Protein backbone atom coordinates (compact mmCIF):
# COMPACT_ATOMS: atom_id res chain seq x y z
CA UNK A 1 0.00 0.00 0.00
CA UNK A 2 2.56 2.53 1.11
CA UNK A 3 4.78 3.94 -1.54
CA UNK A 4 6.86 7.00 -2.14
CA UNK A 5 6.59 8.59 -5.51
CA UNK A 6 7.71 11.93 -6.74
CA UNK A 7 4.68 14.11 -6.33
CA UNK A 8 4.86 17.46 -4.63
CA UNK A 9 4.95 17.45 -0.88
CA UNK A 10 3.57 20.65 0.53
CA UNK A 11 5.77 20.11 3.56
CA UNK A 12 9.06 20.18 1.79
CA UNK A 13 11.39 17.38 2.64
CA UNK A 14 11.65 15.69 6.00
CA UNK A 15 8.93 13.84 7.85
CA UNK A 16 7.81 14.17 11.44
CA UNK A 17 8.45 17.39 13.32
CA UNK A 18 9.73 17.84 16.85
CA UNK A 19 7.34 17.79 19.75
CA UNK A 20 6.68 21.32 20.97
CA UNK A 21 8.68 22.31 24.04
CA UNK A 22 6.71 22.44 27.28
CA UNK A 23 5.30 25.80 28.46
CA UNK A 24 7.32 25.57 31.70
CA UNK A 25 10.52 25.24 29.72
CA UNK A 26 9.63 28.13 27.42
CA UNK A 27 8.85 30.37 30.39
CA UNK A 28 12.01 29.33 32.24
CA UNK A 29 14.04 30.17 29.13
CA UNK A 30 12.40 33.56 28.73
CA UNK A 31 12.90 34.40 32.42
CA UNK A 32 16.53 33.35 32.17
CA UNK A 33 17.01 35.57 29.12
CA UNK A 34 15.41 38.52 30.86
CA UNK A 35 17.41 38.09 34.07
CA UNK A 36 20.72 37.64 32.35
CA UNK A 37 20.11 40.65 30.11
CA UNK A 38 19.74 43.05 33.00
CA UNK A 39 22.53 41.41 34.95
CA UNK A 40 24.86 41.98 32.02
CA UNK A 41 23.76 45.58 31.87
CA UNK A 42 24.33 46.04 35.60
CA UNK A 43 27.60 44.23 36.23
CA UNK A 44 29.47 43.95 32.93
CA UNK A 45 32.53 45.97 32.02
CA UNK A 46 32.39 49.70 31.33
CA UNK A 47 35.25 50.01 28.85
CA UNK A 48 35.08 48.21 25.51
CA UNK A 49 36.99 44.95 25.45
CA UNK A 50 36.44 43.52 22.01
CA UNK A 51 36.70 46.17 19.36
CA UNK A 52 40.34 45.94 18.43
CA UNK A 53 40.70 42.66 16.56
CA UNK A 54 44.15 42.54 18.20
CA UNK A 55 43.25 39.92 20.76
CA UNK A 56 43.66 36.19 20.39
CA UNK A 57 46.51 33.76 20.78
CA UNK A 58 48.40 32.44 17.76
CA UNK A 59 46.99 29.05 16.80
CA UNK A 60 49.29 26.01 17.17
CA UNK A 61 51.98 26.08 14.51
CA UNK A 62 50.77 23.03 12.63
CA UNK A 63 47.33 24.57 12.08
CA UNK A 64 48.92 27.70 10.66
CA UNK A 65 51.18 25.65 8.42
CA UNK A 66 48.29 23.46 7.30
CA UNK A 67 45.92 26.32 6.52
CA UNK A 68 48.61 28.29 4.67
CA UNK A 69 49.72 25.26 2.65
CA UNK A 70 48.74 25.49 -1.02
CA UNK A 71 47.89 21.76 -1.11
CA UNK A 72 45.35 22.25 1.68
CA UNK A 73 43.67 25.13 -0.13
CA UNK A 74 43.64 23.26 -3.43
CA UNK A 75 42.32 20.16 -1.65
CA UNK A 76 39.38 22.10 -0.24
CA UNK A 77 38.62 23.60 -3.65
CA UNK A 78 38.70 20.12 -5.21
CA UNK A 79 36.41 18.83 -2.48
CA UNK A 80 33.94 21.68 -3.06
CA UNK A 81 34.06 21.16 -6.79
CA UNK A 82 33.44 17.41 -6.43
CA UNK A 83 30.43 18.03 -4.20
CA UNK A 84 29.18 20.60 -6.70
CA UNK A 85 29.56 18.30 -9.70
CA UNK A 86 28.01 15.33 -7.89
CA UNK A 87 25.05 17.48 -6.89
CA UNK A 88 24.71 18.94 -10.38
CA UNK A 89 24.74 15.40 -11.76
CA UNK A 90 21.85 14.39 -9.50
CA UNK A 91 20.04 17.61 -10.40
CA UNK A 92 20.39 17.12 -14.15
CA UNK A 93 20.17 13.34 -14.59
CA UNK A 94 18.30 12.34 -11.43
CA UNK A 95 14.58 11.72 -11.11
CA UNK A 96 11.97 14.32 -10.24
CA UNK A 97 11.13 12.69 -6.90
CA UNK A 98 11.70 13.71 -3.32
CA UNK A 99 14.03 10.72 -3.04
CA UNK A 100 16.46 12.55 -5.32
CA UNK A 101 19.34 13.50 -2.98
CA UNK A 102 19.53 16.87 -4.71
CA UNK A 103 16.78 18.23 -2.45
CA UNK A 104 18.47 17.08 0.75
CA UNK A 105 21.82 18.42 -0.40
CA UNK A 106 20.24 21.74 -1.33
CA UNK A 107 17.96 22.30 1.69
CA UNK A 108 19.76 20.41 4.45
CA UNK A 109 23.47 19.96 3.79
CA UNK A 110 23.99 23.28 2.07
CA UNK A 111 21.59 25.63 3.82
CA UNK A 112 21.48 24.18 7.33
CA UNK A 113 24.88 22.46 7.29
CA UNK A 114 26.56 25.75 6.52
CA UNK A 115 25.89 26.86 10.10
CA UNK A 116 27.52 24.05 12.16
CA UNK A 117 30.47 23.77 9.81
CA UNK A 118 31.12 27.52 9.85
CA UNK A 119 30.66 27.63 13.60
CA UNK A 120 33.24 24.90 14.16
CA UNK A 121 35.69 25.45 11.34
CA UNK A 122 35.41 29.09 10.28
CA UNK A 123 34.46 30.45 6.85
CA UNK A 124 34.03 27.11 5.07
CA UNK A 125 32.00 28.28 2.11
CA UNK A 126 34.72 30.74 1.12
CA UNK A 127 37.19 27.84 1.14
CA UNK A 128 35.15 25.37 -0.91
CA UNK A 129 32.81 27.64 -2.92
CA UNK A 130 32.65 26.22 -6.45
CA UNK A 131 31.73 29.62 -7.90
CA UNK A 132 34.95 31.07 -6.47
CA UNK A 133 36.84 28.09 -7.85
CA UNK A 134 35.41 28.57 -11.34
CA UNK A 135 36.18 32.28 -11.18
CA UNK A 136 39.72 31.42 -10.10
CA UNK A 137 40.06 28.98 -12.99
CA UNK A 138 38.84 31.62 -15.48
CA UNK A 139 41.35 34.07 -14.07
CA UNK A 140 44.20 31.54 -14.36
CA UNK A 141 43.28 30.70 -17.94
CA UNK A 142 42.99 34.33 -19.02
CA UNK A 143 46.03 35.39 -17.01
CA UNK A 144 44.01 37.74 -14.81
CA UNK A 145 43.73 38.20 -11.07
CA UNK A 146 40.63 36.63 -9.44
CA UNK A 147 40.58 39.47 -6.90
CA UNK A 148 40.18 42.06 -9.64
CA UNK A 149 37.10 42.54 -11.78
CA UNK A 150 36.31 44.99 -14.53
CA UNK A 151 34.79 47.37 -11.99
CA UNK A 152 35.24 48.17 -8.33
CA UNK A 153 32.47 46.74 -6.18
CA UNK A 154 30.30 49.73 -5.16
CA UNK A 155 30.61 50.39 -1.40
CA UNK A 156 26.99 51.51 -1.23
CA UNK A 157 25.82 48.05 -2.31
CA UNK A 158 27.36 46.43 0.76
CA UNK A 159 25.65 43.18 1.71
CA UNK A 160 22.36 44.09 0.02
CA UNK A 161 22.75 41.61 -2.87
CA UNK A 162 23.40 38.86 -0.31
CA UNK A 163 20.27 39.84 1.59
CA UNK A 164 18.27 39.60 -1.62
CA UNK A 165 19.83 36.22 -2.44
CA UNK A 166 19.11 34.89 1.04
CA UNK A 167 15.52 36.03 0.73
CA UNK A 168 15.29 34.30 -2.64
CA UNK A 169 16.46 31.11 -0.96
CA UNK A 170 14.05 31.20 1.96
CA UNK A 171 11.23 32.15 -0.39
CA UNK A 172 12.02 29.05 -2.45
CA UNK A 173 12.21 26.88 0.64
CA UNK A 174 9.30 28.18 2.68
CA UNK A 175 6.60 29.71 0.50
CA UNK A 176 7.11 28.60 -3.09
CA UNK A 177 4.51 25.81 -3.59
CA UNK A 178 6.76 23.65 -5.79
CA UNK A 179 9.84 23.69 -3.58
CA UNK A 180 10.26 19.91 -3.90
CA UNK A 181 10.03 19.71 -7.68
CA UNK A 182 13.25 19.25 -9.53
CA UNK A 183 12.78 21.80 -12.31
CA UNK A 184 12.30 24.95 -10.22
CA UNK A 185 15.00 24.11 -7.66
CA UNK A 186 17.46 23.29 -10.43
CA UNK A 187 16.58 26.57 -12.12
CA UNK A 188 17.19 28.43 -8.85
CA UNK A 189 20.66 26.90 -8.62
CA UNK A 190 21.43 27.68 -12.25
CA UNK A 191 20.46 31.32 -11.75
CA UNK A 192 22.59 31.44 -8.59
CA UNK A 193 25.66 30.04 -10.36
CA UNK A 194 25.17 32.35 -13.35
CA UNK A 195 24.73 35.42 -11.14
CA UNK A 196 27.83 34.52 -9.12
CA UNK A 197 30.02 33.96 -12.16
CA UNK A 198 28.86 37.19 -13.76
CA UNK A 199 29.38 39.11 -10.52
CA UNK A 200 32.83 37.58 -10.06
CA UNK A 201 33.82 38.60 -13.59
CA UNK A 202 32.55 42.14 -13.06
CA UNK A 203 33.77 42.81 -9.53
CA UNK A 204 36.34 40.12 -8.68
CA UNK A 205 36.45 38.23 -5.39
CA UNK A 206 35.01 41.16 -3.42
CA UNK A 207 31.72 40.22 -5.02
CA UNK A 208 31.74 36.82 -3.33
CA UNK A 209 32.66 38.33 0.01
CA UNK A 210 29.70 40.68 0.00
CA UNK A 211 27.13 39.42 -2.51
CA UNK A 212 27.24 35.60 -2.44
CA UNK A 213 24.39 34.82 -0.03
CA UNK A 214 25.99 31.60 1.13
CA UNK A 215 29.43 33.07 1.64
CA UNK A 216 28.05 36.06 3.55
CA UNK A 217 25.97 33.71 5.73
CA UNK A 218 28.84 31.30 6.30
CA UNK A 219 31.42 34.00 7.01
CA UNK A 220 29.04 35.77 9.39
CA UNK A 221 28.45 32.57 11.39
CA UNK A 222 32.21 31.90 11.24
CA UNK A 223 32.66 35.07 13.28
CA UNK A 224 31.16 33.07 16.14
CA UNK A 225 33.87 30.46 15.80
CA UNK A 226 37.18 30.64 17.66
CA UNK A 227 39.15 31.08 14.43
CA UNK A 228 40.38 34.46 13.35
CA UNK A 229 43.31 35.90 11.42
CA UNK A 230 45.79 38.63 12.29
CA UNK A 231 48.60 39.71 9.98
CA UNK A 232 47.91 36.67 7.84
CA UNK A 233 48.32 34.24 10.74
CA UNK A 234 45.61 32.07 12.25
CA UNK A 235 44.67 33.06 15.78
CA UNK A 236 42.37 31.53 18.35
CA UNK A 237 40.17 34.07 20.09
CA UNK A 238 36.95 34.23 22.03
CA UNK A 239 33.86 34.07 19.79
CA UNK A 240 32.75 37.42 21.20
CA UNK A 241 36.05 39.07 20.31
CA UNK A 242 35.79 37.47 16.90
CA UNK A 243 32.24 38.69 16.47
CA UNK A 244 33.24 42.29 17.06
CA UNK A 245 35.41 42.14 13.92
CA UNK A 246 32.32 41.87 11.67
CA UNK A 247 32.59 44.80 9.26
CA UNK A 248 29.46 46.97 9.33
CA UNK A 249 28.44 47.56 5.74
CA UNK A 250 25.14 48.63 4.21
CA UNK A 251 22.66 45.76 4.19
CA UNK A 252 24.07 43.90 7.20
CA UNK A 253 20.84 44.43 9.14
CA UNK A 254 18.88 43.17 6.14
CA UNK A 255 20.98 39.98 6.04
CA UNK A 256 20.38 39.27 9.71
CA UNK A 257 16.69 40.18 9.43
CA UNK A 258 16.16 37.73 6.57
CA UNK A 259 18.00 34.94 8.41
CA UNK A 260 16.18 35.43 11.68
CA UNK A 261 12.79 36.38 10.24
CA UNK A 262 12.68 33.42 7.89
CA UNK A 263 13.57 30.91 10.61
CA UNK A 264 10.89 32.38 12.85
CA UNK A 265 8.42 32.22 9.97
CA UNK A 266 9.33 28.57 9.42
CA UNK A 267 8.34 27.84 13.03
CA UNK A 268 5.23 29.96 12.70
CA UNK A 269 3.95 28.33 9.52
CA UNK A 270 4.08 24.94 11.26
CA UNK A 271 1.91 26.23 14.09
CA UNK A 272 -1.66 25.07 14.37
CA UNK A 273 -2.76 28.71 14.48
CA UNK A 274 -1.42 29.41 11.01
CA UNK A 275 -2.62 26.04 9.69
CA UNK A 276 -6.14 26.75 10.90
CA UNK A 277 -6.02 30.23 9.43
CA UNK A 278 -5.02 28.87 6.02
CA UNK A 279 -7.53 26.02 6.11
CA UNK A 280 -10.50 27.57 7.88
CA UNK A 281 -10.57 31.34 7.56
CA UNK A 282 -13.12 32.70 5.12
CA UNK A 283 -10.66 35.12 3.59
CA UNK A 284 -8.70 32.10 2.33
CA UNK A 285 -11.27 29.37 1.79
CA UNK A 286 -13.98 31.41 0.07
CA UNK A 287 -11.80 34.00 -1.56
CA UNK A 288 -13.77 34.90 -4.67
CA UNK A 289 -11.03 36.98 -6.23
CA UNK A 290 -8.18 34.47 -6.52
CA UNK A 291 -9.31 31.10 -5.17
CA UNK A 292 -8.12 29.37 -2.00
CA UNK A 293 -4.73 28.10 -3.26
CA UNK A 294 -3.59 31.47 -4.48
CA UNK A 295 -5.00 33.17 -1.39
CA UNK A 296 -2.99 30.81 0.83
CA UNK A 297 0.15 31.41 -1.25
CA UNK A 298 -0.31 35.17 -0.97
CA UNK A 299 -0.84 34.88 2.79
CA UNK A 300 2.38 32.85 3.13
CA UNK A 301 4.33 35.36 1.05
CA UNK A 302 3.04 38.25 3.09
CA UNK A 303 3.77 36.47 6.36
CA UNK A 304 7.37 35.70 5.35
CA UNK A 305 7.89 39.29 4.25
CA UNK A 306 6.32 40.60 7.45
CA UNK A 307 8.55 38.45 9.67
CA UNK A 308 11.74 39.54 7.88
CA UNK A 309 10.80 43.21 7.57
CA UNK A 310 9.40 43.26 11.10
CA UNK A 311 12.63 41.96 12.64
CA UNK A 312 14.70 44.41 10.61
CA UNK A 313 12.54 47.41 11.47
CA UNK A 314 12.32 46.58 15.19
CA UNK A 315 16.08 46.10 15.33
CA UNK A 316 16.82 49.30 13.43
CA UNK A 317 14.48 51.39 15.59
CA UNK A 318 15.76 49.84 18.81
CA UNK A 319 19.39 50.58 17.95
CA UNK A 320 18.61 54.15 16.91
CA UNK A 321 16.51 54.99 19.96
CA UNK A 322 19.39 56.44 21.96
CA UNK A 323 21.19 59.68 22.44
CA UNK A 324 24.28 60.00 20.22
CA UNK A 325 27.16 62.41 19.86
CA UNK A 326 26.53 65.00 17.15
CA UNK A 327 29.36 63.64 14.97
CA UNK A 328 27.80 60.15 14.79
CA UNK A 329 25.11 59.55 12.20
CA UNK A 330 22.28 57.82 14.00
CA UNK A 331 21.39 55.88 10.87
CA UNK A 332 24.78 54.15 10.97
CA UNK A 333 23.91 52.51 14.30
CA UNK A 334 21.78 49.56 13.09
CA UNK A 335 24.58 48.13 10.96
CA UNK A 336 27.18 48.80 13.67
CA UNK A 337 25.10 46.77 16.12
CA UNK A 338 23.95 44.11 13.65
CA UNK A 339 26.72 41.66 14.62
CA UNK A 340 25.09 41.33 18.05
CA UNK A 341 22.04 39.63 16.56
CA UNK A 342 24.18 36.87 15.00
CA UNK A 343 24.45 34.76 18.22
CA UNK A 344 20.68 35.01 18.66
CA UNK A 345 20.21 33.78 15.09
CA UNK A 346 22.66 30.90 15.56
CA UNK A 347 21.03 29.86 18.85
CA UNK A 348 17.60 29.91 17.29
CA UNK A 349 18.78 28.02 14.22
CA UNK A 350 20.24 25.31 16.44
CA UNK A 351 16.90 25.07 18.23
CA UNK A 352 14.88 25.06 15.06
CA UNK A 353 16.97 22.83 12.81
CA UNK A 354 18.86 20.44 15.13
CA UNK A 355 16.77 17.29 14.56
CA UNK A 356 16.11 18.23 10.94
CA UNK A 357 19.83 18.53 10.26
CA UNK A 358 20.81 15.38 12.12
CA UNK A 359 18.04 13.15 10.79
CA UNK A 360 17.28 14.44 7.30
CA UNK A 361 21.03 15.00 6.94
CA UNK A 362 21.57 11.28 7.47
CA UNK A 363 18.72 10.43 5.14
CA UNK A 364 20.36 12.60 2.48
CA UNK A 365 23.64 10.72 2.89
CA UNK A 366 21.76 7.46 2.31
CA UNK A 367 19.93 8.84 -0.73
CA UNK A 368 23.11 10.44 -2.08
CA UNK A 369 24.47 6.99 -2.82
CA UNK A 370 21.81 6.55 -5.48
CA UNK A 371 21.68 9.89 -7.31
CA UNK A 372 19.74 8.59 -10.33
CA UNK A 373 17.21 6.51 -8.42
CA UNK A 374 18.19 3.31 -10.23
CA UNK A 375 19.11 1.30 -7.16
CA UNK A 376 22.87 1.83 -7.34
CA UNK A 377 25.04 2.42 -4.29
CA UNK A 378 27.97 4.54 -5.46
CA UNK A 379 29.10 5.82 -2.07
CA UNK A 380 28.42 2.64 -0.11
CA UNK A 381 26.11 4.57 2.22
CA UNK A 382 22.88 3.35 0.64
CA UNK A 383 22.29 0.59 3.19
CA UNK A 384 22.76 2.73 6.29
CA UNK A 385 19.80 3.41 8.53
CA UNK A 386 18.85 6.81 9.94
CA UNK A 387 19.61 7.04 13.63
CA UNK A 388 16.66 8.64 15.44
CA UNK A 389 18.33 8.68 18.85
CA UNK A 390 17.81 12.42 19.23
CA UNK A 391 14.06 12.24 18.59
CA UNK A 392 13.77 9.40 21.10
CA UNK A 393 15.10 11.72 23.81
CA UNK A 394 12.56 14.56 23.64
CA UNK A 395 13.42 15.99 27.06
CA UNK A 396 17.11 16.23 26.26
CA UNK A 397 16.21 17.67 22.88
CA UNK A 398 13.89 20.30 24.34
CA UNK A 399 16.48 21.31 26.97
CA UNK A 400 19.19 21.57 24.32
CA UNK A 401 16.99 23.78 22.18
CA UNK A 402 16.12 26.15 24.99
CA UNK A 403 19.72 26.23 26.22
CA UNK A 404 20.88 27.13 22.69
CA UNK A 405 18.37 29.98 22.49
CA UNK A 406 19.32 31.32 25.93
CA UNK A 407 23.09 31.07 25.36
CA UNK A 408 22.69 32.79 21.97
CA UNK A 409 20.69 35.53 23.64
CA UNK A 410 23.30 36.06 26.38
CA UNK A 411 26.14 36.29 23.85
CA UNK A 412 24.08 38.72 21.77
CA UNK A 413 23.41 40.95 24.77
CA UNK A 414 27.09 40.99 25.73
CA UNK A 415 28.13 41.81 22.15
CA UNK A 416 25.60 44.65 22.04
CA UNK A 417 26.74 45.96 25.41
CA UNK A 418 30.37 46.05 24.34
CA UNK A 419 29.49 47.89 21.14
CA UNK A 420 27.25 50.33 23.04
CA UNK A 421 30.01 51.44 25.39
CA UNK A 422 32.25 51.91 22.39
CA UNK A 423 29.97 53.98 20.16
CA UNK A 424 27.51 55.69 22.53
CA UNK A 425 28.38 58.80 24.53
CA UNK A 426 29.04 58.12 28.23
CA UNK A 427 25.79 59.60 29.51
CA UNK A 428 23.68 57.47 27.15
CA UNK A 429 25.55 54.21 27.55
CA UNK A 430 23.12 52.61 29.96
CA UNK A 431 19.81 54.08 28.85
CA UNK A 432 20.80 53.89 25.20
CA UNK A 433 21.11 50.12 25.48
CA UNK A 434 17.66 49.62 26.91
CA UNK A 435 15.58 49.69 23.70
CA UNK A 436 17.88 47.16 22.04
CA UNK A 437 17.84 45.02 25.17
CA UNK A 438 14.05 44.98 25.13
CA UNK A 439 14.04 44.14 21.43
CA UNK A 440 16.42 41.23 22.04
CA UNK A 441 14.39 39.91 24.96
CA UNK A 442 11.35 40.20 22.70
CA UNK A 443 13.05 38.26 19.90
CA UNK A 444 14.17 35.52 22.27
CA UNK A 445 10.82 35.25 24.05
CA UNK A 446 9.08 35.22 20.68
CA UNK A 447 11.40 32.46 19.45
CA UNK A 448 10.73 30.41 22.57
CA UNK A 449 7.01 30.98 22.17
CA UNK A 450 7.17 29.64 18.63
CA UNK A 451 9.10 26.56 19.81
CA UNK A 452 6.34 26.02 22.33
CA UNK A 453 3.39 26.80 20.08
CA UNK A 454 4.51 25.19 16.83
Amino acid sequence: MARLDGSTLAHGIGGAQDLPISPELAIAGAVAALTVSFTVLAVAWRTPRYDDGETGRPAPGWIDTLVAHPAFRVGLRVLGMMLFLYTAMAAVFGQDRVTNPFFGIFYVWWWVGLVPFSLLLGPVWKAISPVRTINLAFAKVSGGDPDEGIFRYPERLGYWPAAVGLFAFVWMELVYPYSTELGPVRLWCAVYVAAMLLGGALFGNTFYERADPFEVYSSLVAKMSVWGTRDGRVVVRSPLANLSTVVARPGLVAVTAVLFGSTAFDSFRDSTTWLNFLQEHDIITTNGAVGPDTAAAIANNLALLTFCAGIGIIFALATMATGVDPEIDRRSLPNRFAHSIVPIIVGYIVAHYLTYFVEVGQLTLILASDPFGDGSNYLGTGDLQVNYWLSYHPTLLANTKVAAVVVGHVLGVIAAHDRAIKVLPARHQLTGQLPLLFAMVGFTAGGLFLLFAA
Partner: protein
Amino acid sequence: MRNRPTRRVLASAAVIVATLALTSACGDEEEPPAGNGEPVSFDITFDGDTVTPRGAEETIAKGSDIELVVEADKPGELHVHSSPEQQVEYGAGTTTIPVKLANQAPGVVDIESHDLDQVVIRLTIR
Protein backbone atom coordinates in the same frame (compact mmCIF):
# COMPACT_ATOMS: atom_id res chain seq x y z
CA MET B 1 40.42 48.50 41.20
CA ARG B 2 42.28 46.08 39.01
CA ASN B 3 40.26 43.03 39.81
CA ARG B 4 36.85 44.63 39.54
CA PRO B 5 36.26 43.60 35.94
CA THR B 6 37.20 40.05 36.89
CA ARG B 7 34.63 40.08 39.66
CA ARG B 8 32.04 41.38 37.24
CA VAL B 9 32.84 38.61 34.83
CA LEU B 10 32.57 36.08 37.63
CA ALA B 11 29.25 37.54 38.75
CA SER B 12 27.89 37.40 35.22
CA ALA B 13 29.14 33.87 34.80
CA ALA B 14 27.45 32.85 38.05
CA VAL B 15 24.13 34.27 36.88
CA ILE B 16 24.42 32.58 33.52
CA VAL B 17 25.22 29.21 35.05
CA ALA B 18 22.41 29.56 37.57
CA THR B 19 19.82 30.45 34.95
CA LEU B 20 20.96 27.69 32.65
CA ALA B 21 20.60 25.26 35.51
CA LEU B 22 17.13 26.66 36.06
CA THR B 23 16.14 26.25 32.44
CA SER B 24 17.36 22.71 32.14
CA ALA B 25 16.00 21.54 35.47
CA CYS B 26 12.44 22.17 34.39
CA GLY B 27 10.58 20.49 31.61
CA ASP B 28 10.65 16.85 32.66
CA GLU B 29 7.93 15.15 30.69
CA GLU B 30 5.87 12.38 32.09
CA GLU B 31 6.00 9.06 30.30
CA PRO B 32 2.83 8.41 28.32
CA PRO B 33 1.31 4.94 28.49
CA ALA B 34 2.86 2.57 25.98
CA GLY B 35 0.76 1.38 23.06
CA ASN B 36 -1.28 -1.71 23.82
CA GLY B 37 -0.87 -3.25 20.37
CA GLU B 38 -4.28 -2.29 19.06
CA PRO B 39 -4.10 0.31 16.27
CA VAL B 40 -5.76 3.63 17.04
CA SER B 41 -8.56 4.30 14.58
CA PHE B 42 -9.41 7.63 12.92
CA ASP B 43 -12.38 8.35 10.65
CA ILE B 44 -11.87 10.56 7.61
CA THR B 45 -14.66 11.55 5.25
CA PHE B 46 -14.16 13.03 1.80
CA ASP B 47 -17.13 14.66 0.11
CA GLY B 48 -16.46 16.62 -3.06
CA ASP B 49 -13.87 19.28 -2.24
CA THR B 50 -14.21 18.98 1.51
CA VAL B 51 -12.71 16.68 4.07
CA THR B 52 -13.71 16.01 7.66
CA PRO B 53 -11.93 16.48 9.99
CA ARG B 54 -9.65 19.30 8.95
CA GLY B 55 -6.56 20.10 10.99
CA ALA B 56 -7.78 17.95 13.91
CA GLU B 57 -5.23 17.63 16.72
CA GLU B 58 -4.88 14.08 18.03
CA THR B 59 -2.39 12.40 20.35
CA ILE B 60 -1.31 8.77 20.44
CA ALA B 61 1.19 6.94 22.61
CA LYS B 62 4.65 6.13 21.29
CA GLY B 63 4.70 2.60 19.87
CA SER B 64 1.13 2.63 18.55
CA ASP B 65 0.06 1.98 14.98
CA ILE B 66 -2.98 3.69 13.52
CA GLU B 67 -5.65 2.84 11.00
CA LEU B 68 -7.48 5.34 8.86
CA VAL B 69 -11.10 4.55 8.04
CA VAL B 70 -11.67 6.59 4.91
CA GLU B 71 -15.07 7.18 3.42
CA ALA B 72 -14.79 8.87 0.06
CA ASP B 73 -16.85 9.67 -3.01
CA LYS B 74 -13.83 9.25 -5.26
CA PRO B 75 -10.41 7.61 -4.97
CA GLY B 76 -7.47 9.64 -3.70
CA GLU B 77 -4.24 9.71 -1.77
CA LEU B 78 -3.13 10.62 1.74
CA HIS B 79 0.39 11.62 2.78
CA VAL B 80 1.56 10.61 6.21
CA HIS B 81 4.48 12.87 7.14
CA SER B 82 6.20 10.38 9.39
CA SER B 83 9.92 9.59 9.14
CA PRO B 84 10.17 8.17 6.55
CA GLU B 85 7.16 9.59 4.73
CA GLN B 86 4.34 7.26 3.76
CA GLN B 87 1.70 7.59 1.08
CA VAL B 88 -1.50 5.62 1.13
CA GLU B 89 -4.31 5.31 -1.42
CA TYR B 90 -8.00 4.86 -0.91
CA GLY B 91 -10.82 4.07 -3.30
CA ALA B 92 -14.40 5.27 -3.56
CA GLY B 93 -16.53 3.91 -0.72
CA THR B 94 -15.10 2.92 2.65
CA THR B 95 -11.46 1.84 2.93
CA THR B 96 -9.65 0.87 6.10
CA ILE B 97 -5.94 1.64 5.78
CA PRO B 98 -3.45 0.39 8.38
CA VAL B 99 -0.53 2.81 8.85
CA LYS B 100 2.60 1.63 10.66
CA LEU B 101 3.77 4.22 13.16
CA ALA B 102 5.03 1.96 15.95
CA ASN B 103 8.63 2.70 14.99
CA GLN B 104 8.07 6.43 14.80
CA ALA B 105 10.04 8.49 17.31
CA PRO B 106 8.11 11.03 19.41
CA GLY B 107 7.11 13.99 17.29
CA VAL B 108 4.34 15.55 15.26
CA VAL B 109 3.09 13.73 12.16
CA ASP B 110 0.74 15.48 9.74
CA ILE B 111 -1.71 13.41 7.71
CA GLU B 112 -2.43 15.38 4.59
CA SER B 113 -4.84 15.01 1.71
CA HIS B 114 -2.81 15.03 -1.46
CA ASP B 115 -5.71 16.01 -3.67
CA LEU B 116 -7.05 18.83 -1.51
CA ASP B 117 -3.59 19.89 -0.26
CA GLN B 118 -4.94 20.14 3.30
CA VAL B 119 -3.85 18.76 6.63
CA VAL B 120 -6.54 16.38 7.81
CA ILE B 121 -5.09 15.23 11.14
CA ARG B 122 -2.13 16.61 13.09
CA LEU B 123 -1.00 13.64 15.13
CA THR B 124 1.23 14.09 18.18
CA ILE B 125 3.17 11.00 19.23
CA ARG B 126 4.39 11.08 22.83
